């Protein structure tokens, strides 16, 4: 069959037109990307890994997010509009995170995306949200040192977990700290801050060391701990390594009463994975623990277990995953349906407050991080924590706490 030149040109032109219409919708739809709350629906992305190495924890974040969305919808939605979650599985892979984020923002036209756990995946999606001026809600504790007007950070930054914790450990156990972390950006930044605080107190770092991600053979580390005899083992080890470290610490016969591990990353989730007996006696600092006594938390825990299973635990990353959806709701509520855009939501959420399970939280207008209530707790053998110290004041987020000459402001990073 011969192809006539004219037919070929026609077909090419038609294909081109369709491609242009589909690929570049803003050239033919007026206000593309603005009116995103059509038909009484508000589309949001939910981007947590359901497969791959971090699925273990991200599944629980996905569950907390979905729970909040369902609760809001069941209570009548936002100004009568339903939240429609579009769930994507980025499979614990930063590159897939970026692809899925692009899909949610560009083709699904979500006005916000709730998602991710690791710093690597947050860094991977950041350009997508900055280029499209969209909004990303990030619930995890992290190392700070980021300043983007396209991310709402609802987890703790170093000053919120350490300012009270390190002096408390210093006072109760002594000045010698052994710093052990997984080998990537988060533990290094947290340890920088820890060293700064220790230097102010007159403490001493006997060893600072990093193990590969996923490391599970801690016998040499434990030997070093034995020979350096620190007062506190400050651990920023993450993932399954947390389990291996705790179990091997215990089988080596070390005693938490004399030489406890103090961690920023060991939550109810990790404790469930290692068994309460291996965790008992070690300390964690975080803004939220499942046992926290408040009517809001009681309601959260009950709803979570009713929806996802009576054996499930809530923890200090799943709690922000839950309350950040409510902050989103409060912000959108202030907007007329035609004004619901990522940019307007960001402006509306600045300074917004609510009573979360952990207590009253507030989005700091200057840097879009969150005011939180740090607590210090000790793990018990039943898998739960006992809260020992509750911060008497609301702690402001300071993502550049370790860098006194830098500050994150509404207009970006300022250096003095």
């Amino acid at each position, binding site marked *: 069959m011969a192809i006539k030149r004219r037919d070929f040109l026609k077909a090419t032109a038609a294909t081109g037109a369709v491609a242009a219409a589909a690929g570049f919708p803003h050239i033919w739809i007026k206000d593309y990307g603005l009116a995103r709350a059509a038909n009484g629906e508000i589309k949001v992305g939910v981007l947590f890994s359901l497969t791959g190495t971090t699925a273990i924890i991200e599944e629980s974040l996905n569950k907390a997010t979905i729970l909040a969305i369902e609760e809001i919808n069941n209570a009548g939605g936002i100004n009568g509009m339903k939240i429609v979650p579009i769930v994507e599985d980025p499979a614990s892979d930063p590159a897939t995170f970026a692809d899925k984020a692009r899909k949610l923002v560009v083709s699904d036209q979500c006005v916000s995306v709730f998602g991710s756990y690791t710093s690597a995946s947050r860094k991977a999606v950041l350009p997508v949200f900055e280029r499209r001026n969209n909004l990303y809600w990030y619930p995890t504790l992290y190392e700070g040192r980021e300043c983007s007007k396209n991310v709402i950070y609802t987890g703790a930054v170093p000053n919120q977990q350490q300012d009270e914790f390190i002096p408390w450990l210093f006072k109760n156990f002594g000045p010698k700290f052994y710093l052990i972390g997984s080998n990537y950006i988060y533990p290094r930044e947290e340890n920088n801050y820890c060293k700064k605080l220790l230097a102010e107190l007159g403490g001493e770092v006997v060893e600072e060391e990093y193990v590969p991600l996923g490391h599970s053979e801690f016998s040499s580390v434990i030997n070093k701990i034995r020979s350096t005899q620190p007062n506190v083992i400050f651990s920023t080890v993450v993932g399954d390594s947390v389990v291996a470290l705790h*179990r091997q610490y215990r089988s080596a016969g070390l005693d938490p009463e004399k030489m406890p591990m103090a961690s920023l990353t060991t939550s109810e989730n990790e404790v469930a994975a290692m068994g309460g007996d291996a965790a008992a006696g070690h300390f964690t600092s975080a803004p939220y623990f499942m046992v926290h006594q408040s009517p809001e938390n009681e309601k959260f825990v009950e709803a979570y277990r009713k929806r996802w299973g009576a054996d499930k635990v809530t923890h200090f990353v799943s709690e922000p995953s839950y309350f950040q959806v409510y902050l989103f709701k409060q912000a959108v509520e202030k907007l007329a349906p035609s004004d619901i855009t990522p940019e307007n939501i960001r402006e509306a959420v600045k300074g917004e407050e609510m009573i979360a399970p952990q207590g009253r939280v507030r989005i700091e207008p200057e840097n879009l991080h969150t005011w939180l209530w740090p607590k210090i707790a000790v793990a018990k053998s039943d898998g739960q924590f006992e809260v020992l110290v509750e911060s008497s004041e609301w702690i402001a987020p300071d993502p550049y706490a370790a860098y006194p000459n830098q500050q994150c402001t509404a207009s970006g990073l300022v250096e003095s």
Partner: protein
Amino acid sequence: MDIVLQQLITGLGIAAVLLLVALGLAIIYGTMGVINLAHGEFVMLGAYGAWVLNAYFGLGLLASLPLVFLGVAILGWLVEKGVIRHLYERPLDTILATWGIGVMLQQIVRLTAGGELRYVQMPAALGHSTTILGVDVSAYRVFIFLTVVVLFAVTWLLMYRTTLGMKLRAIVQDRSIANCFGINSGRVFGLTFAYGAGLAGLAGALVAPLKSVSPEMGTGYVVDAFFVVVLGGVQSLFGTVGSAFLLGELTGVIAYIRNDTIAKALVLLAIVVLIRFRPQGLFAVRVRS
């Protein structure tokens, strides 16, 4: 002096785990020439087996060991009969086939047991530290070490002091001649693969109380096991022991002096260099060609 001794003993503990995981792989690779990439998943299944027996049937770790060995061995036998058997003439294709089996096993476990990390209780009597030559070591690590010694002895006896072992060695030397002598090579290979898989399962159950149990846990172990086997030289049981010992001590000492990240890198570098100059492995047996 104390520190040197302590580090040597720690290295022995690391070596014991390495050997435990590598032993099954060494037998399968060394005798059958099958590169079993599903080995890590057999380890993982053993760990899950111990967890299931503990969580649902209340069986302690020690009591569950024989059941785990048997269960994973039967699975290995099925894999050999169902897949590997058809690929004897194409050894390179076993890489792809076993890798696929590994992926499937991982996903099956994820679908049935969920993605959560699990843990296996350490036997109560072993959950403390004990003193050996004035050095504090975990009693459980001593137990692993002794178990490995026993397993190695049993394996050696099987290979060199039984008829099955003799037949296996005959097949390794020349398969067609062995068949001519009436050795049923299919049956021997089936049993060998099952035994290797069972050892992997046993390894998984034994390391479970020290580490975490997850569907992905096998990936790391298969890499370590291949290091040991390749460095030791295939077809050499004592080579496997020697290289496990060497890698364990090397890792322990470097990790103590510097840290685990550097230890991992340097050990890998050492393997690359050694393999460059001794491609047949450190302790290869001389084979008639």
